């Protein structure tokens, strides 16, 4: 891991950040692609759950819908350049991290109150724990491509 040291190479950092404030190149493309797959699958799943069996577990399926929305916002905002989109990305990824941790913990410690599956249940075990890994990678990527302070 090469941490960007602003003190060591100020000219290079300035040139990079000054020209483009983007997060959709290099590893970011893979991140956006994975987010896009999760956005599609989570939206489809939440839509299906809400349309067919919402009354069974309103809380769980509402959480599914929120998760889907978070993935959509993260996908779009990561693909867009600029500082505002960076902030939206950061918020979306943080909400995602908190969501997967809280919902994951709830589904482990209180399975009676939380019997229905969501993307974040059991820390995303149904999705190979990618929902747990994704926000961490997202935060690392956002940190490495953070906009420079004025």
């Amino acid at each position, binding site marked *: 891991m090469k941490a960007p040291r602003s003190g060591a190479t100020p000219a290079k950092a300035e040139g990079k950040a000054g020209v483009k404030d983007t997060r959709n*190149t290099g590893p970011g493309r893979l991140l956006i692609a994975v987010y896009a797959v999760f956005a599609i699958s989570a939206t489809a799943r939440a839509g299906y759950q809400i349309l067919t069996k919402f009354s069974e577990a309103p809380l769980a399926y509402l959480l599914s819908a929120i998760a889907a929305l978070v993935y959509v916002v993260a996908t779009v905002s990561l693909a867009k350049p600029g500082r505002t989109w960076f902030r939206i990305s950061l918020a979306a990824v943080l909400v995602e991290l908190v969501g997967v941790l809280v919902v994951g913990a709830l589904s482990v410690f209180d399975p009676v109150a939380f019997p229905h599956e969501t993307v974040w249940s059991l820390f995303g075990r149904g999705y190979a724990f990618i929902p747990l890994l994704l926000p961490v990678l997202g935060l690392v990527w956002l940190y490495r491509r953070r906009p420079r302070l004025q």
Partner: protein
Amino acid sequence: MDAYFYIILVVGLLSSGVCLGAGILKKAPNDFTILSVAAVELALLVYLVGSIVRVIAGEPIAGEAWEFWGYLATAMLLPPAAVYWSILERTRWSNFVLAAVGVTALVMAARMNQIWY
């Protein structure tokens, strides 16, 4: 799990392996990696045609029919999207995006098999 699943299993894993290898070797997407993803699309097309034939022949889908077709349609959109995405930026990272297609198609095919039977 039927033959369609195993076709996608083999093609998907091979494609992901090729693309992952190319990415690790720091290569940009080339004919080899893009064609391997095209092979995944072809395998899904075989699944589509086979499924249409089976439905016309009167074989019932055990699960929700529209869920099955939804999965299949979404899976078929992934390879073209990934190839388009990889042509826009020709770096090694696009090979990792291409590598994600085979594995995702494999997972979706497994789910499609569950719905069918």
